């Protein structure tokens, strides 16, 4: 009886969490007429029209304007910008994380302070950086460019990667590295042959989460991005701005944009709590 009560609450929570996604999915396979009916329809003839429209650019109804958001482009932009930003942040962040784990400083506290300084970027309000950056980017021609966005996304990537990788490196016993040194490995060799293989699971999870954070970020893309570089987050708002709201296609766009994150969420379960708390909570 007690267990019945638990399962009931769990079932309720699962329903509350999944319902918005399932409902959005149901909207994405409805026709425009079914969506806009005044009473929500639970039984309807499913259609793939919204998904086809998303990629071919047809709106499906004649009463709506033909100029519409270019979703495939937004998706590709998201992949390019988030992928590029993640790659760059890994190149910069992983060596730094390792140095912040093992390098000797004159004062022992320097290491902690540097790490905290790098972390603090994550907490700053984006708008305070992006307003002046808007002007700077306009002057040097980086506005609405992939490079410009990848650079500013380093504020998301570097702090996260430094903290996460550091937390994984700290898990590796120093004695293993010392043993490698005794066996004649240089510091660089130790890093590539001993440390990286041991931490590769954590590093991979960190990379994927960095990608997701970049994929999900909004303010940077809104202000210093533009029509050419628009990713799915700002792009999915485009379905509202036209003369009428393209509910069906917007739903389809939401589902397609959310899918990578949903899949990763399930795959990365083990690493996610640690990732979301910057390594402060380990499981």
């Amino acid at each position: 009886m007690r267990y019945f009560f638990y399962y009931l609450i769990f079932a309720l929570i699962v329903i509350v969490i999944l319902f918005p996604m399932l409902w959005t999915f149901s909207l994405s396979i409805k026709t425009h007429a079914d969506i806009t009916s005044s009473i929500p329809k639970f039984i309807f003839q499913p259609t793939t029209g919204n998904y086809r429209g998303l990629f071919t650019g047809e709106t499906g109804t004649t009463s709506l304007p033909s100029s519409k958001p270019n979703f495939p482009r937004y998706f590709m932009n998201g992949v390019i910008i988030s992928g590029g930003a993640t790659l760059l942040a890994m190149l910069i962040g992983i060596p730094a994380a390792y140095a912040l784990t093992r390098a000797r400083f004159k004062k022992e506290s320097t290491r902690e302070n540097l790490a905290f300084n790098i972390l603090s970027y994550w907490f700053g309000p984006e708008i305070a950086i992006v307003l002046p950056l808007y002007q700077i980017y306009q002057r040097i021609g980086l506005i609405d460019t992939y490079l410009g966005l990848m650079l500013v996304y380093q504020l998301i990537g570097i702090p996260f990667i430094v903290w996460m990788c550091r937390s994984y490196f700290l898990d590796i016993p120093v004695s293993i590295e010392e043993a490698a040194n005794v066996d004649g490995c240089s510091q660089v060799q130790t890093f590539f042959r001993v440390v990286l293989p041991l931490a590769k699971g954590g590093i991979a999870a960190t990379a994927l989460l960095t990608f997701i954070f970049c994929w999900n970020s909004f303010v940077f893309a809104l202000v210093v991005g533009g029509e050419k570089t628009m990713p799915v987050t700002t792009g999915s708002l485009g379905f509202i701005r036209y003369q009428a709201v393209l509910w069906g296609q917007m739903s389809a766009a939401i589902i397609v944009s959310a899918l990578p994150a949903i899949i990763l969420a399930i795959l990365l379960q083990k690493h996610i709590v640690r990732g979301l708390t910057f390594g402060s909570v380990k499981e």
Partner: protein
Amino acid sequence: MKKWIIAPAILVPILVGVIPFGYGVYLSFTNWRLANPGINFIGLENYYFLFKDQNFWKAVLISFEYVGMAISIELALGSLIAYLLTKNRRGQWFFRSIIIIPLTVAPILLSLMWKLMLSTSGGVVNYFLGFIGISPVAWLADPKIALLTLAFIDAYIYTPFVALILFAGLQSLPRDPYEAALVDGASGFDSFRYITWPLMRPLVLVSVMFRLVISFKIFDTIYATTSGGPGTSTTNLHLWVYLNAFRYGDMAYAMAGAVILYLIIYILTNVFVRMWKNATSYI
């Protein structure tokens, strides 16, 4: 270990973060406008008007109200879920996979899902409430409840974050003190007060700090659902800054607001980091 490999991880964020922000602080003392390229130094004028601007103070207040509402809901529900998770080992993997999903999908996509469901014309939430005799509610269009609705959307996205952190903490609690307390005749409340709470406090602080900062500077979900309206009833400080910059074109004035936003977050974070250090000092 060469320490210079940390340098890029420090220099890149300085380049795209600190320098723009510093330049922004300078710009907040000028008359920079979106349409007008000429920039003149005008001293403290922007700040003077800012402190007399009722809309600005209202935005500050709304930020705090929003954070207060969202965090209360999230802590209450999050502790409940965390507690239930410890009581139920079967199906835990499935349940955790589900509750992680809202944390990885872009907040803007989730809030768009809610916007679809909360719509007053054919929205599914009002339709369901109709069955239990509740007349349609303008969730996002009624100035009295729009902010609360947004806090609930925030809770939908971030309650799992609090739940997972607290759950990780509850799982790592040692068994022995509880048995000792039981032998000594301590009540359930006593063991909570003297064992669970002191051990859990750092984690509660970590989750509250993350939630506090991120909800305080929340932007994307509000921008996508209400854009700060109806009226200014959901315009928090981050949105206020954005609207002043890009809707009214008053960049310097907006930047002054952004500096204040930065200062508030800076103070909040420091208070919590200090509290966290105190709470962990004896563990």
